[in-house]
């Protein structure tokens, strides 16, 4: 049952940690924890969401232990790599160009510029296809909060992608 979700867990871990060895460690620790605490799993409920929840706790514990990255609040503006003031979202025809200019690896690179609080919501909902309710369960917050995190996260992601397109020389500055 749990190993059926191994690939999904690994995808999320890889995108959270950005490192294969660390992703494997996180997944392994999470699945062993799930195994030891299986009696706490409520049969009939969502096993995948339960496993994601455990894995996120494992990941956050490691992050806190090593003092690398913290869950910044929703009001926090992105700082790494993307300056939101100079990276407007494309509109109209530019939007078409925007999709055509995204090259392999851009989305992962753009995700990495997102603060963790938005990144994890976008990864779970948009890359893994979890429902708002499932994401809310995994992240332990109300559905309304998830909706605002997703909205903000997607906005930041588009901005980052536009900026990369500009760096690749595909999009011109909107002036």
């Amino acid at each position, binding site marked *: 049952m749990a190993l059926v979700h191994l690939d999904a867990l690994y995808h999320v871990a890889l995108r959270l940690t950005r490192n294969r060895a660390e992703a494997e460690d996180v997944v392994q620790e999470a699945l062993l924890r799930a*195994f030891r605490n299986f009696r706490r799993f409520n049969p009939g409920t969502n096993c995948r969401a339960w496993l994601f929840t455990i894995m996120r706790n494992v990941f956050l514990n490691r992050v806190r232990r090593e003092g690398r990255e913290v869950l910044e609040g929703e009001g926090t503006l992105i700082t790494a790599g993307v300056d939101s003031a100079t990276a407007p979202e494309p509109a109209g025809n530019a939007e078409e160009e925007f999709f055509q200019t995204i090259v392999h690896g851009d989305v992962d690179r753009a995700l990495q510029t997102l603060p963790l609080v938005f990144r994890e919501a976008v990864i779970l909902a948009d890359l893994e296809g979890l429902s708002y309710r499932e994401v809310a369960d995994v992240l332990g917050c109300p559905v309304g909060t998830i909706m605002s995190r997703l909205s903000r996260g*997607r906005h930041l992601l588009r901005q980052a992608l536009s900026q990369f397109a500009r760096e690749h020389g595909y999009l011109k500055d909107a002036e």
Partner: protein
Amino acid sequence: MNCQEFEACLHPYVDGELAVGETSAADVHAAECGRCADLARRERRFRQLLRRQPREAASAELRARLVSRIHRERRRAILRPWLVAPAIAAASAAIVVAVLISAWRSPSPLIGELIDKHIAYAQIERPAELASADPTEIEMWFRQRAGLRVTVPDYSPSGIRLVGARLAETHEQKAAYLFYEKGRTLLSVFMLPIPTGDVALAGARVSYRGHAYVTYEQKGYRTVSWSDGRAVFGLVSMLDYEALLECADRLRAERATQTRL
């Protein structure tokens, strides 16, 4: 619904998270308002972009390590239930292990048969009925001998050379069997004209380059199998999973091109 209301619910609308009544109201508005319809289209396209990101499968080593760790944990839980936790812990642990490893213990009869054939032919000096390194010759041979339309993939860029083919009797029907070699390691490629649903491919499900495969390992022989709806494909070898999945992916791609022709 007006434009302002539509924009407010744009994300849940595109995500399919609105209630039925709200969805209908948004549909009606989008049908009347080009600008809002365009907003929704752009959002959908962005979701598609995100959903289509490459997904790297967990390695076979990680799977193997987990199975072995869980085995160890299970033994510990069974040996010391009265010390560490109530008996229920051991019972639930046993259930999880059973679920986790059941896929590894029993291959489907078909996969077992393919592994047995591979082992048997690996013992023979010249296993092929038709010794040939020419894909076209082999394809013609299968067509004439058994009316089978076979795709003979080219694995030479990966250093895997084609050595020949034979007709195999598998699952009570004729199947194409291709032989490849990497160094001295034999790779068997089976193609069976069996529609989906007629066979169960037991094993661990993995996703590689967006396609689903079933893997199973026995006595050091690894298998990767899948079905495309009309035929079942099985690769058996001592090569690692990465090499096998790469071969599977190439076969799938070459077959897709041929089918279109």
